[in-house]
């Protein structure tokens, strides 16, 4: 469904991605693992179109999308839940959700998408007229996930969804990722919480210094001695 072929990205003189390649098949949960600064967020932002690759290809449903604008990629079904939620703080929860379905493809599904969000997070219905900036971290994460659902995505990319959340809330977040997966969404998960990620993912790629270093079945990686040492500290 989504494929990266030897993608390179520069930030000025800094060579952030030095040949990232991976593939996500329809219906999969794929985790992208790596330490701080490995290039995970850059990878997601490159898929979203915020960064432009200097070489390599991003292929979505058989089409090279390197030059497509970020807003057009959303219309094609690629959406991300950005790191740190990044809600529109001075807009109500409802407005945040409605902005999610701004694109023309998502708009006809607006009503049923809204119902889906409120089914998944009944609390958001109570909070719908509150400014998003006044919500707790966990609630903000719910809005961020719902906002992504509103854009009628086929693939949802989560960038550090557990960042800054209490452990109990983190479990909820992962539960919801599983739910979305069951509803048929393809998921790319970027997480520092390697243990949890490998538990929910089908497959995982490990990146270091902007390059792939390892890939495989999540269960095998979980058992891999070097992964355990490098990322799990056990």
């Amino acid at each position, binding site marked *: 469904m989504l494929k990266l072929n030897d993608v390179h990205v520069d930030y000025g003189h800094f060579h952030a991605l030095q040949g990232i390649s991976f593939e996500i098949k329809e219906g999969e949960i794929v985790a992208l693992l790596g330490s701080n600064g490995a290039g995970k967020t850059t990878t997601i932002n490159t898929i*979203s*179109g*915020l960064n432009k690759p200097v070489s390599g290809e991003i292929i979505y449903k058989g089409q090279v999308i390197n030059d497509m*604008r*970020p*807003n*057009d990629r*959303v*219309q094609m079904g690629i*959406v*991300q839940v*950005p790191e740190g939620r*990044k809600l*529109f*703080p*001075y*807009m109500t929860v409802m*407005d945040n959700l*409605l*902005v*999610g379905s*701004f*694109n023309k493809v*998502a708009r006809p599904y607006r009503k049923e998408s809204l119902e889906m969000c409120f089914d998944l997070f009944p609390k958001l219905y109570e909070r719908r007229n509150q400014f998003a900036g006044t919500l707790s971290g966990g609630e903000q994460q719910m809005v961020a996930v719902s*906002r992504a659902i509103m*854009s009628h995505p086929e693939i949802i990319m989560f960038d550090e969804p557990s960042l800054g959340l209490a452990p109990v809330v983190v479990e909820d977040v992962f539960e919801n990722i599983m739910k979305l997966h069951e509803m048929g969404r393809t998921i790319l998960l970027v997480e520092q919480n390697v243990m949890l990620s490998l538990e929910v993912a089908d497959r995982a790629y490990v990146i270091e210094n902007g390059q792939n270093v390892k890939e495989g079945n999540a269960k095998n990686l979980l058992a891999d001695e070097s992964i355990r040492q490098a990322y799990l500290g056990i």
Partner: protein
Amino acid sequence: MLYLQTFIDALMIGGVYSVIAVGLSLIFGVMRVINWSHGESLMVSMLIALYMNQYTPLDPYVIMLIVGAVMFVYGYVLQSVVISRILSRETDREPISCLLFTAGLGMVMSYSVQIIFGSKQVMAQTKYNGRALHMGDLVVSLPKLIAFIIAVVAVAALWTFLQKSEYGRAIRATSQNRSVATLMGISEKRVYSVSFAIGTMLVGLAGGMLIPYFSVYPTVGSVFSNKSFIIVVLGGKGSVPGALLGGLIVGLIEKFGALFFSESVAQIIVFLMFIAILLFKPTGLLSKDKG
């Protein structure tokens, strides 16, 4: 009675200040670009309205609507063809080169008008000039009253558009976080062009409503643009109700300052208030922004 008369006069000029300032505030709030040619756009709008009034049989307020439409197109094209190219080279959130460009553009506009039309003050002759309503001892200038009403309606319409419409929501989202807005499928460039166009359209309307009682000359824009900057800071950058409130406050200070002291002292008070706001409440009266 004198106070009531002054109060009415203040509101009526304050409304026009508001509509001009709202345009500036919207452009700044969304793009973080301060449009230094805002006053000159007003001057050009007044000039177009003046000539249309002279050479067409149309009612000045029909002309006002046409000028508004013309300025909408002008703003859209200016942003999408010129400013967007300068902006795309800037990585800074508050782009200096756009500021310099619009300042330069303003000078070109005002000096071009001076060369072509001369620097004399010209007053449009419309059927509304000098007409007034008398209510007891109160005298209310008809064109000023109409201008005030249109100004308030325009600001209210803009506010409703931003709060309730699909595109208004997209504009608000972009002003709060532009990269995340594009991740929601919103075209940043188009939002910028529409916002800039609405900003200049409001100036076009203001130009049209001013000509029955305000004479046109090449530097007339600065009379209003200086105040607009103060109003935007006073009301809160990017805030529509703030600009309305700020415009009315500046109108009140001017008129009551002139009543109690003199017109020039009133201007000094306005600028002192500007400095005080910058020192003690730099986010403005109604801004949601905390920094």
